[in-house]
C-alpha cells in the first residue's frame, strides 16, 4: 500500500511526546522503536530488540497509535515484534479495566496511509472494546487496501445480499452480490458469490475478476530427465521467438502453439495441449499491455516446479513437485512498463510414477498487492508480437 510519509512522521512525532511520558523510566520511545525495527536476518539485533521490547511493553495504552505507526516501513519480522507489543499492552489494559484510546484507534484504522496490517490490528482492538465499531467502519472498507479489513466488509455485504435473496428480492440480491464481488479478492469469498449469482441467473467472469491469463503461446516438451531441465536455460529463456522451432525432448522438433484455456481460473493442462510427458519442460508465453508503469504481482499455482519471468527477468522460482496446487501459492513481484510486457513461465514435470504425480499444469494471473486484477490487455498472437529480439536478463 501507499504510505504518506509526511502524515506518518507527523503522527509519530506527536505520539512520541505522549508516549515518552508513559514509558516507565526508560529510553526515548523513538529509540526503542528504532531498536526493534533494526532486527535483522538470523536474529541479529534480537538482544537489543528484546530489551527495547520489554520497555515498550510497559507503556500505557495511549502509546498504541505510536507503536502502530511504527509498522509503516517495518519489514515483516519487525512488524511481528511490534504486533506482539501492541497485543501485550492492549491485552493487559483490557484485563485491568483500563480504557484503550478508542478514538485514536478508530482514526488510525481509517487512515489508509498507514500500514494495512497495523490498521487491521487497530481495528481489531477497537472492535474488542467497541462492539459497534464494525458496523460503523466496515461499510467504507469494501475496497480497502487491507485485505483483512476488506474481507470483513465483503462478508458484511454478503450477509445483506443473502438476506435479500431469502426475501426473494432477486434484483436486489444480485445487486448486493455484485457489490460484494467488487470488493472480494479472496478465492473462497469470490467462489461463494459466484455460486450465489449463478443460482440467481447471473454470470461472473472469474478469469477477468482475478486477472487470470487465458491466452498463451506454449512450447514443449524439452527434457527434464532427472530434474536437470529446471536449471537448464532452454532457448525460450534466452529469446522468445514465436516463429522458431526448437529441438525438444527425444530430438523432436517442437514449435510454439497458440492456446486459449476455457477454464475460469486460467488452468492450463499441459498434458492435454502438449501431450502426456514425464521428465519434461514446457514454456508458456503471454503479453500484457499496461497503460502506465505500475507494480505487479505475477501469482501462479502449479503442482510442478516453476520459474516465472517478467520482461526477461526471473522474478520467482520454486523447485518443488507434486506437493499441492493452490491458487496464488507462488508470487513474484515486478513492475509493468507502459505498453507491452512479456510474461514467461517455465513449468517442469518430473518422473514420478504415482497417480497423483501425473499433473502437469499451471495457472497465472496478474494483479496488484491486494489481489485486484490490473487494468491492461492480454494477447498471445502468433508471429505478430514483435517478440524475437529480446535477450533474457539476469
Amino acid at each position: 500500500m501507499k504510505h504518506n510519509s509526511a502524515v506518518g512522521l507527523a503522527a509519530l512525532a506527536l505520539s512520541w511526546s505522549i508516549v515518552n511520558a508513559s514509558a516507565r523510566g526508560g529510553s526515548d520511545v523513538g529509540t526503542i522503536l528504532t531498536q526493534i525495527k533494526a532486527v535483522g536476518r538470523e536474529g541479529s539485533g534480537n538482544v537489543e530488540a528484546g530489551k527495547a521490547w520489554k520497555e515498550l511493553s510497559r507503556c500505557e495504552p495511549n502509546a498504541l497509535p505510536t507503536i502502530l505507526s511504527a509498522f509503516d516501513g517495518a519489514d515483516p519480522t519487525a512488524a511481528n515484534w511490534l504486533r506482539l507489543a501492541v497485543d501485550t499492552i492492549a491485552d493487559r489494559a483490557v484485563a485491568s479495566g483500563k480504557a484503550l484510546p478508542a478514538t485514536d484507534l478508530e482514526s488510525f484504522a481509517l487512515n489508509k496511509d498507514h500500514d494495512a496490517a497495523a490498521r487491521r490490528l487497530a481495528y481489531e482492538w477497537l472492535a474488542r472494546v467497541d462492539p459497534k465499531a464494525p458496523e460503523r467502519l466496515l461499510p467504507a472498507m469494501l475496497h480497502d487496501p487491507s485485505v483483512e479489513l476488506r474481507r470483513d466488509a465483503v462478508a458484511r455485504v454478503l450477509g445483506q445480499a443473502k438476506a435479500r435473496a431469502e426475501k426473494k428480492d432477486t434484483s436486489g440480491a444480485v445487486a448486493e452480490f455484485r457489490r460484494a464481488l467488487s470488493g472480494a479478492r479472496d478465492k473462497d469469498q469470490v467462489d461463494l458469490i459466484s455460486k450465489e449469482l449463478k443460482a440467481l441467473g447471473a454470470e461472473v467472469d472469474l478469469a477477468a475478476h482475478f486477472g487470470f491469463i487465458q491466452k498463451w503461446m506454449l512450447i514443449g516438451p524439452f527434457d527434464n530427465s532427472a530434474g536437470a531441465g529446471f536449471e537448464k536455460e532452454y532457448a525460450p529463456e534466452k529469446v522468445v521467438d514465436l516463429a522458431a522451432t526448437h529441438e525438444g525432448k527425444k530430438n523432436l522438433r517442437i514449435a510454439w502453439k497458440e492456446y486459449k484455456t476455457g477454464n475460469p481460473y486460467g488452468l492450463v493442462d499441459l498434458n492435454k495441449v502438449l501431450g502426456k510427458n514425464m521428465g519434461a519442460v514446457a514454456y508458456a508465453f503471454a503479453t500484457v499491455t499496461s497503460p502506465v508503469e505500475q507494480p505487479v504481482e505475477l501469482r501462479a499455482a502449479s503442482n510442478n516446479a516453476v520459474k516465472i519471468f517478467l520482461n526477461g527477468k526471473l522474478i520467482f522460482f520454486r523447485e518443488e513437485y507434486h506437493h499441492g496446487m493452490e491458487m496464488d501459492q507462488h508470487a513474484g513481484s515486478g513492475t509493468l512498463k507502459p505498453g507491452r510486457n512479456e510474461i514467461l513461465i517455465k513449468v517442469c514435470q518430473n518422473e514420478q510414477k504415482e497417480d497423483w504425480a501425473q499433473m502437469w499444469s499451471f495457472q497465472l494471473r496478474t494483479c496488484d498487492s491486494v489481489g485486484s486484477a490490473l487494468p491492461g490487455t492480454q494477447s498471445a498472437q502468433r508471429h505478430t508480437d514483435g517478440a524475437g529480439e529480446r535477450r533474457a536478463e539476469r
Partner: protein
Amino acid sequence: MNRIGKKPAIVLWIPVFLCSSGGVRAGDWPQFRGPGGTGVSPEVNLPTNWSATENVRWKADLPGRGLSSPVVADGRVYITACTGYRERRLHVLCFDAASGKKLWERQLAATGSTTCNAKTSIAAATPVTDGERVYALFASGDLVCLDKSGDLIWYRSLAGDYPLITNQVGMAASPILWKELLFLPMENVGDSFAAALDKRTGQNRWKLERSRGINWVTPQILMNGDRAEVLFQTEKDTTAYEPETGKKIWSYGANNPSAVVSAFTGEDLIFVPGQDFVALRRGPNGGSPTSVWKSSKLRPVYASALHHQGFVYVLGHAGILTCAEAASGKVLWQERLKKGNYWASPIAADGRIYAVNEDGVTSVIKPGEHPTNLSTNDIGANVLATPAIAGGAIYLRSDHCLFCIANNRS
C-alpha cells in the same frame, strides 16, 4: 500373565531430560510426545473412562485449527492455533492447568507460505517449554519465544532469513530443547537444514545443510554414556550430531528411515522406523551403530512408535496396534483398536496405552502378553494431535477445543 513389569526398561534419557530443563518437573509434558520425546509420562491415577461430559475437568475454546499438541509445565498449558484466510494469523495461547482459564494469547502474522495440505495446518508443530519460556514454531517458518507471562523474548521469521524453505504439504516437525539450545528441524524441499539456536537470543549457534525432501520428523536427544547426541532424521539418513557444535558423530541410512516418525531409544538400543524398522546398537567410541534386529512387520505410518517397559508399540493408520519385544523385535500380538484413522501418536502412563483416532475416540489399552482393551472414550470432536499427560490429567486437542480429562476429585 502380564509380562510388563518383569523387565525394567533401560531408559537413559529421562534423567538427562530432567537436568536439561530446569523449570520442567517430572509429570510435566514439555514437548512433542512429552518428557524426552518418549511418549511416556510418570503420572498415575489417570482416568480410564470419559466422554464429552464425563471426567472433563475443563474445556477451553481455541480460536482456530491446529495439529500441535498442548505442552504443560509449571501449571501452565501452552498451545498454538491459526486462524484467518489461509491460516495467516498465528496464535500462541496459555491456560491455567488447574482451571482452564486463559491466561494470555499472543498473535503473529505469517511471514512465510501458508500453503499446506487441507489435512494439516500451519499450527502443526508442537511448541516446547522449559517451564519459564515457550518456543513456538509454525509451518510458515515463524518462530517465537515468549515467557510464561506472555512477554516476548525474541521472534524470528525463518522464511525471511531463508526464503527458499518450502514444503507445500506443510511443515510439522517440532523444535526441542537441550540445555541452552533450541533445535530446529527444518528439513524441506528447498533450503533444507537443521539448526541449533541460543534459546535466550534466538540466534544461530550452528546451521547444517540437510538432504532435500519433505519431512516431519521431530529430532531427539540421545545419551551415549554422559555425552548427548541430537538426532535428526530424513528419508536419506538418521544422523547424530554434537549438540553444542553440530559436528556429525554418526549416520545411518540403510533402512531408508521414515520422513514422519521419529527414532527413539530403549533397552540401550536406538529404534529407527523406516522401510524396515531397525534396532541399532551404538558402535564403540562413538562409532557408527550396527543393526541388532530389523523387522518389516513394524511399519508406523503417521503415528510415532512407543517404547514402554521393554516393549515396542507401533500404531498403524487404520488402528492396528502391534507389540514387539524391544530386545528382539519379535512380534507378540496385534490388536485392532476402535475403527478409524489414527494420526496422533500413542502415549503411555499408569500402565496403560492411550491411542486416539481422528473421530476423537480414545482406546485405553492395558498392554501385556495378552492386551486388554479397557475402554473406548468418545470426546465428541475430531482429534489429530497427539495428547498430552500432566498433573493427573490427559489433554486432548480438537480443531476448536482443548479438553482436560481427569478423574473427578470427589
